[in-house]
């Protein structure tokens, strides 16, 4: 049998069939381009592009930006003016932002908001107006372009923003100082109304994503069971996933959700969702759910596991040990794809070590095969 391409490997495993080897890939934006990256790709490392399937337009909303100094720090203040009022947010940017790509700094850090759009109860109606006046228009060019560039060397996936309640939690109200929880307790009606408005507005976006040529749709989110407790997950996240999954599955595509945090306390709820791929699930020490246990628990799902950044900080030998331990935990290695990183750029030494472990991980994995990989690296 001919060796599978990187695309075939990733998608075969993602559709719960057995690939020839354990698939592994790097996200384009986390990957430095150079000799080590070439070496790792020659070992079988695929690439993954994450691109949006739509553009959005806000009607009757004026947006202005200016640089201001807040508490001695230069920030970019963005103000949205609507017929029902104005709201603003401040954004701090690390060095290199606007000089590289996608508003990333030289260290691959996205700008972060020091002031959120929603500060008090009076801001909700303005944001609700903005949401209700946002239109989504299909634009598959970025996906088609990346698919053309990548060919069989990896996979292109649709990128959607955080799901409605996470937009409130992470982007608009923010979790700093527990602000989202406090708003949710003090202004439950305002939070609920805005959530409902976003959820309704998203239907058009989901339909566009479902029909894009990408084989997988990443339904935003950044789920962590500490921030998203079981009650919130059940009430606000699961119904949204049901809605998205129906549209995506009708088109024969797969749905993935980024869950790189500690999800132990919501694992039984996650198991009930229609999500096909749990993306970026981190093994301990960063996560709290061993990958082997997750595979047993999520029998109808595939895991794209994110390699823990905290192990990378310990150097190549620690990476080797952790990767080998992880392989021993997931025998025979089905329904699993390795992501080299979901968090930041990986050093040449660490990336070479990880890929040197994974390049010979033929499926089905056995203890003997893993022992042999270990011997070959010692």
């Amino acid at each position, binding site marked *: 049998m001919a060796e599978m391409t990187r695309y075939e490997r990733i998608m075969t495993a993602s559709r719960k069939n057995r690939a020839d080897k354990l698939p592994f890939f790097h996200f384009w934006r986390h990957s430095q381009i150079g000799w080590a990256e070439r070496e790792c790709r020659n070992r079988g490392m695929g690439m993954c592009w994450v691109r949006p399937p739509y553009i959005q337009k806000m009607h009757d909303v004026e947006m202005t930006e200016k640089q201001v100094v807040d508490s001695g720090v230069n920030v970019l203040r963005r103000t949205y003016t609507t017929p029902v009022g104005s709201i603003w947010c401040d954004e701090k940017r690390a060095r290199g932002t606007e000089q590289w790509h996608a508003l990333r700094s030289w260290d691959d850090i996205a700008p972060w908001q020091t002031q959120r759009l929603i500060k008090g109860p009076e801001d909700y109606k303005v944001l609700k107006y903005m949401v209700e006046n946002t239109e989504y228009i299909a634009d598959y060019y970025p996906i088609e372009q990346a698919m053309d560039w990548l060919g069989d060397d990896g996979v292109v996936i649709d990128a959607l923003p955080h799901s409605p309640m996470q937009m409130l939690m992470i982007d608009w109200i923010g979790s*700093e100082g527990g602000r989202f929880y*406090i708003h949710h307790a003090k202004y439950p009606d305002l939070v609920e109304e805005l959530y409902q408005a976003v959820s309704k507005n998203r239907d058009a976006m989901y339909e566009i994503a479902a029909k894009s040529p990408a084989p997988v749709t990443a339904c935003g989110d950044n789920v962590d069971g500490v921030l998203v407790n079981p009650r919130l997950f059940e009430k606000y996240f699961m119904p949204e996933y049901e809605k998205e999954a129906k549209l995506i599955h009708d088109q024969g595509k797969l749905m993935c959700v980024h869950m790189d945090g500690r999800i132990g306390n919501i694992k039984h709820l996650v198991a009930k969702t229609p999500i096909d791929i749990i993306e970026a699930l981190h093994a301990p020490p960063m996560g709290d759910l061993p990958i082997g246990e997750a595979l047993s628990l999520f029998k109808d799902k595939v895991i794209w596991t994110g390699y823990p950044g905290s192990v*990378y*900080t310990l150097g190549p030998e620690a990476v080797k040990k952790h990767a080998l331990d992880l392989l021993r935990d997931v025998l025979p290695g089905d329904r699993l794809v390795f992501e080299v990183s979901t968090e930041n750029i990986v050093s040449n030494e660490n990336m070479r070590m990880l890929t040197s472990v994974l390049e010979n991980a033929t499926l089905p994995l056995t203890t003997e095969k893993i022992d042999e990989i270990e011997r070959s690296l010692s």
Partner: protein
Amino acid sequence: MTEKQYLAALKQGIINLDFEAVKKTAKEAMEAGIDPSTAITEGMVPGMAVVGQKFESGEYFLSELVVAGEVMKEGVEVINPYIKATESTKPQKVKAVLASVEGDNHDLGKNIVGTLLGVQGFEVIDLGMDVPADRIVAAVKENNPVVLGLSALLTMTMPKMGEVIEALKAAGLRDKVKVIVGGTPVTGEFAESIGADHRAANALEGVQKCTEWAKAEERR
């Protein structure tokens, strides 16, 4: 209402996460001449302790813990104008300085630790997020805390914890304060490698360690 009833109502208001009930009861208690410190330490703090137990047992989540802390904060704001006159008679509290290190704009874990330390009787000096090492060192120098708690959620910002410890050494303060580090990516190995005294596995365990240190300090 008797003093006992006011204290019970404050406690229950905290447990129920009821902003309005706590503020109303606090106001009425002050107008009825209840001692402000008693209202806080024997009314609200026991309520927070119950919330902490419920959090530990899994009945309450982080959200409830955060909201309870905010309910208490708003209740204390009502009482504060009454407490100032007696402030000088209060026993001095053990101090803890907390910060999310430079470049890190996450504070949920740190805030939970701060809330729980407050319940345990610490005076918490929270420096906030994205705090440079020199500001942390200055706060340690100024406040002479028993504990310095450093938080990071990103592997990219974790090394800043080591820089803070080095800066403490350079300032001659390292031996004067216990350093506890925490955050999702922070491992025991990493904590050891940068010379921290302890890595908090979670907020509750971290606070337990701080309390041990505070007790040892009191015995001195």
